[in-house]
């Protein structure tokens, strides 16, 4: 009489988006996923004077360090050839120990983040135990898989990097996904977005030359990651540099998620660039 769900902690079932044919893959795909028409990505139609089509987020990086994982992301969001927004946040907490770093369609990624935050918590609160790491990773994979049709139609493609702290192994863990929802665990680092391919080899170089990422202290790893981000901004038009707005960084350790203090980031950026960012706005 009072119950609405099947009691499995299944959030997709609760909000009525899990259809039997898809096995839940369409949790967030929405009607556009199976729409017949290919939607134009760039049009001459009405826009907001800045851009037409979707807004995209670009380079995000996750690296391990001694106490866990650091995530950094640039702040630029682009639409077509326009810079839409220079204070985008692309590293977002899903729960106390899980960070998602998003690249690709901003609209879809934000929906997915909202969905996952609710799905993980709904499970934990209704089942009185936290969702397992594997359960969380599968849920994210399902959402990406459910988005494939829309992504093939040219809208809503997004690629996340998921970082977490594994209390059993007492270390950070980093996972990345392909466009179909396949999940891969990386040993030390991961990146996504249009600037990520250009810097891929540098991760290896740093690990070979300066020693494993997992042995660095926080500020060393942070400096390397911010340098990588700066290089990505140099090589990729859609990735924002740090001259105008500072990048953001978050860590996950055994104590949970923390923002890296903005002063630390400012000092490191100053060291990397040799100049003070000219218009550093808070958050």
């Amino acid at each position, binding site marked *: *009489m*009072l*119950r*609405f*769900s099947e*009691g499995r902690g299944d*959030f997709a079932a*609760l*909000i009525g988006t899990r259809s039997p044919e898809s096995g839940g893959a369409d949790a967030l795909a929405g009607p556009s996923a199976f729409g017949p028409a290919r939607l134009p990505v760039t049009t001459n139609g009405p826009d907001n004077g800045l851009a037409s089509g979707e807004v995209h987020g670009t380079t995000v990086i996750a690296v391990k360090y001694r106490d866990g994982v650091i995530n950094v992301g640039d702040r630029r969001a682009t639409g077509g050839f326009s810079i839409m927004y220079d204070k985008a946040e692309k590293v977002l*907490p899903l*729960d*106390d120990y899980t960070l998602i770093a998003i690249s690709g369609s901003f609209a879809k990624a934000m929906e997915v983040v*909202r*969905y996952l935050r*609710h799905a993980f*918590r*709904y499970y934990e*609160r*209704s089942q*009185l135990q936290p969702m397992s790491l594997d359960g969380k990773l599968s849920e994210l994979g399902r959402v990406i898989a459910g988005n494939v049709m829309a992504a093939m139609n040219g809208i809503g493609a997004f690629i996340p990097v998921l970082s977490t702290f594994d209390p059993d192994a007492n270390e950070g863990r980093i996972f990345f996904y392909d466009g179909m929802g396949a999940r891969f665990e990386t040993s030390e680092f991961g990146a996504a977005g249009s600037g990520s391919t250009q810097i891929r080899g540098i991760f290896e170089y740093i690990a070979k030359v300066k020693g494993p990422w997992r042995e660095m202290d926080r500020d060393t790893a942070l400096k390397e990651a911010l340098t990588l981000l700066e290089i990505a901004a140099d090589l990729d038009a859609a990735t924002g540099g740090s001259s105008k707005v500072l990048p953001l960084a978050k860590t996950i350790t055994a104590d*949970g*998620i*923390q923002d890296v203090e903005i002063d630390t980031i400012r000092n490191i950026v100053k060291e990397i660039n040799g100049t003070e960012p000219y218009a550093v706005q808070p958050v």
Partner: protein
Amino acid sequence: MPYSLYDWNEAIQQRNEYVEDRLKDGSPVVAVSYEDGILLLSLRGAQRKVFEVYDRLIMGALGKQSDIESLRLAAVDVAHKEGFERSPDDVSIQRLVGFSLSPAIKRVYNDQQSVPLTLRAVFAEMDRTPDTDHFFVLGYDGEFEAQQRCAVAAGTPYAEDQAEEFLREASPATLDDALRAALTAWGIGRSRLAPKAADEEGDDFDPLSDRNDTNLKMADDPAVAIREALKDKATVEAAILNRNSARETKFRLLKDADLEAVLAEYR
């Protein structure tokens, strides 16, 4: 068959008696605001008794375990559906209890073919200050009361009043104060089920004198009630919503270590 007003009255009366009889022996649930958040406390056997409902909502109840579970899941469902489809900011205790849970419970209560839900629940919503925290007590008939600062669900309305009066007086500032006050309030809610009417000889009226089980007879002393419960292997279950936490999750179940200092006084 004709159905008279008397039958209807009788039926309601019987339902109430049936439920109230079963609630009387329940372990009260106590909620109280303090500076850094809200504390929800109870003593329990095997089953959990205090729960996180949503980002800033907690609940606890006494009554039948399966009924509490139905109510809890319904509350979690409604809160998450609304929080996702609209915004977490729109999930409020007033909407949840007033418009979703209360009418549903009332429907079950009014349905003469079904057994009413045997429970009494406390809901609390954390705001920015203790003065603006919200508390609701929801009964088996769907009726509810809004309260400030504290709320108690206990076996009888009298016990609730006594415990709440004590908590209002105590007005705890720190978590430690809140734990002490809540535990005493639990003892009051457990032991003072009805007023003691002094008879002419000056002997106290024992509200539990009609019970055959001597184990259930307790002195009118909250400390005794707490000691008895702890001796019977009851576990103190306490959870907080932390107002100033930087974490995503404001809810935290307190660990044994957090409770030990307060419990030591009763061991």
